[in-house]
């Protein structure tokens, strides 16, 4: 211990109070952070390191692999390689295609294993050993929330990847964390009217729910939204993440009197539960004089591909789909396709967009200082990223944009053409107050730049 006493100051003792002293960023414009404010992992050489923390094993591994592809593509585009993708359509943009703030973008990757413990450990390694200035990734809200609070404590920016729980920007929101992806509430708000139009008002729903923060909040959101349309929720059953075999949970559904099965599952879980539900013959059954139907509130093309034929005609919502025809989407699909030979998933899209948004915020602020980034991103309005005009709301760091309601394609023309967009729900219809009851109780707190 003598080493410390001899050579090092004791200022760190008061780190907590010092961090609070950095408050009140509202009085500065972005450039105020550009000069001389010390912050954690300030890049010193000619390059800047980003940390991509995605599930490479476990129930969400497919999504994680696609996220990683998108990150690598985004890094290429930021460094001025390739065709630039959405950098050409993104506006207003300060990106120059020569890295970020003149520094070449490099990255490190980590495996979250879809476990909070492993994800935090991997993020800590990136921050402490690899000196990453920003962590991004996800594919499980439990993990995203755990890593987000770690980044807040450490003093780096967290750009959430695929995380759909209300809590990420609700009661677990953090000043250093940002989410582009939509959430459970938005899914409910977009999906409920479509479900009402197609299946009527008098329906009894049975929920099977992944037993963690995402499942809980989506279940609540969908139940609330459908109940307001006159539906009745018969039963809510929680299933462990990565269960594999769902037959024990599916058997009671048919005897419950329910005529709709809502699967609050994602990734391989959804593939398994939906496939098994179809194998049980549920979709051929008649209950209460109506056709038994299945709803998957959060859809992704990767999952739909995994479930194959079974998704035909099943409704759900999604953040983005490759078949969209706006300029941003077309540019992204084209450069992703050229790179990898197949269209990107919604997970890939949100991760790509998040990386570009972060880079643009750094250019705008003139610094990588997290507090400068926070200021540049808060209430930032942009377009050309595939979702139409989008707002990064400053009050909770959540993006507000159109939500897609999709349906399993009855007549797919290719193996990627599995989902068809039924309706584009305008952003206004899915917007809520920052202190809406499903999101209340959270506190952004102050941005933390990790400076001691």
């Amino acid at each position: 211990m003598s080493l410390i006493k001899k050579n090092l100051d004791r200022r760190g003792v008061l780190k907590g109070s010092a961090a609070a002293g950095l408050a009140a960023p509202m009085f500065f414009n972005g450039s105020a952070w550009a000069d001389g404010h010390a912050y954690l992992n300030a890049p010193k050489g000619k390059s800047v390191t980003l940390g991509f923390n995605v599930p490479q094993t476990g129930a969400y591994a497919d999504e994680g692999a696609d996220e990683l592809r998108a990150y690598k593509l985004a890094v290429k585009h930021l460094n001025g390689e390739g065709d630039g993708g959405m950098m050409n359509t993104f506006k207003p943009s300060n990106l120059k295609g020569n890295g970020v703030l003149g520094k070449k973008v490099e990255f490190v990757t980590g495996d979250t294993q879809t476990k909070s413990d492993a994800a935090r450990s991997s993020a800590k390694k990136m921050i402490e050993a690899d000196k990453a200035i920003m962590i991004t990734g996800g594919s499980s809200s439990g993990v995203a929330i755990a890593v987000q609070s770690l980044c807040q404590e450490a003093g780096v920016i967290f750009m959430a990847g695929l995380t759909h729980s209300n809590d990420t920007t609700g009661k677990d929101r953090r000043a250093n964390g940002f989410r582009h992806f939509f959430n459970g509430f938005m899914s409910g708000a977009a999906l409920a009217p479509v479900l009402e139009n197609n299946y009527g008002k008098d329906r009894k729903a049975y929920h099977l729910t992944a037993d963690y923060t995402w499942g809980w909040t989506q279940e609540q959101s969908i139940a609330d939204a459908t109940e307001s349309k006159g539906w009745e929720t018969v039963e809510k059953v929680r299933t462990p993440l990565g269960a594999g075999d769902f037959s024990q949970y599916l058997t009671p559904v048919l005897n419950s009197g329910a005529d709709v099965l809502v699967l609050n599952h994602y990734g391989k879980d959804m593939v398994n539960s939906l496939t098994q539900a179809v194998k049980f013959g549920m979709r051929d059954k008649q209950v209460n004089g109506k056709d038994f139907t299945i709803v998957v509130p959060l859809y992704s093309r990767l999952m739909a591909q995994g479930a194959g034929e079974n998704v035909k005609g099943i409704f759900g919502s999604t953040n983005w789909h490759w078949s969209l025809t706006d300029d941003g989407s077309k540019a992204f699909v084209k450069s992703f396709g050229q790179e990898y030979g197949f269209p990107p998933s919604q997970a890939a899209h949100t991760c790509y967009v998040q990386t570009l948004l972060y880079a643009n915020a750094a250019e705008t602020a003139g610094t990588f200082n997290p507090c400068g980034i926070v200021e540049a991103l808060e209430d930032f309005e942009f377009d050309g990223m595939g979702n139409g005009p989008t707002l990064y709301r400053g009050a909770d760091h959540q993006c507000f944009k159109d939500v897609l309601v999709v349906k399993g394609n009855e007549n797919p023309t290719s193996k990627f053409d599995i989902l068809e967009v039924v309706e584009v729900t305008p952003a206004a219809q899915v917007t809520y107050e920052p202190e809406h009851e499903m999101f209340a109780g959270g506190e952004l707190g102050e941005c933390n730049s990790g400076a001691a």
Partner: protein
Amino acid sequence: MKILTHPTSSVDSTMMFIFVAAVLTMPIWLTPIGAAYPDLMQRFVIFGLFATGFNILFGLTGYLSFGHAAFLGIGSYTAVWSFKLLGMNPIPAAIFAVTVSGVFALVIGYISLRRSGIYFSILTLAFAQMCYAIAYSDLIGKFLGINLTNGETGLRVLADDPRMLDGVLTSGIDTSALTVNLFGLDLTHTWVWNGFQFNAGFYFCAFVLIIASYIAMRIFRSPFGLMLKAVKTNQNRLNYTGVNTKPYTLAAFVISGMYAGLAGALLCITDPLAGAERMQWTASGEVVLMVILGGMGTLMGPMLGAGIIKFSEQKFSTWGKPELHEFLAFIPDGIRDTVVSVASLFVGSGWHLTLGLVFMLIVIFLPGGIVEGGRRILMIVTGSNRRNRQIQAAAQAAE
């Protein structure tokens, strides 16, 4: 009477001194191999503590528990609850974690120790998996109507938790960051000196480890430790001579459970989050690997094993083909691609293959683990093996 000969206290003090010096200077001598960042060093120390405690049971009595991760998890949950209710001070957290995991170890140990051998292992495994399932689905919490473990998401400290002692112990210090602080010293703080990272949390854990290893050493050298070794050698014979071995094995079980609980608390002290996956059977298996790899029944072996496993986990599991290409750059281009594609099976998510291979090699060729390997090398270098034999021969001749 060979069993009674153990190193003199001066050998022990030298070893302890070297150990303390090595632990405290970790941030310096681990730098060349790229392992000197706080998170990994904390893991070395915490899992070293876990393995040391496990070795008191497994190394001394030979009882192979496959459920020690349960105590690790219980310690973690207790620590986080202590943070939530009492405040972000690590000392009450550690004390409660040790106590609660000790109570659980007493109950589980009392039942499991009715059997020995494989039945004991299976019983402990069953208990650990039960604990895991209960924590994962938060069954007790659901029963009581509170959020006890927060299931898959993991238990965290929230801003609106009572943290009753925070104002008392750390008056005038802002604790809203929700990081653990030792009477005001933020344990996430890192002092940087000449590029070396000295982390407060690491030194807290290192301090705990040093005390715990000293206690472990005293247990090894005590009559109680000798009795445990006797249990391992031949429990039946002990029973026939009228010794009731159960209190000894149960005490060893509880002590090692408390060590595991303390390690679990330290995991949360360095990072205040407790997840159920910490209790999974893979975590229980890992500590067995650590102890066997390092050398069961030795004092320093488990710590070495823990260090090596945690180091390779961090390194190999993050490697991919690009890193392998760089690492194997000395191989000519034509062959390198083949070598890399074969080797890439053993890194990244496949690093468990590497671990398995190394483990097999150790068990087959070095049953005493790395410590035995070191001893053999030492003997070759110093030729002490021959000298020992000569001394023995001389002694026999004198008789």
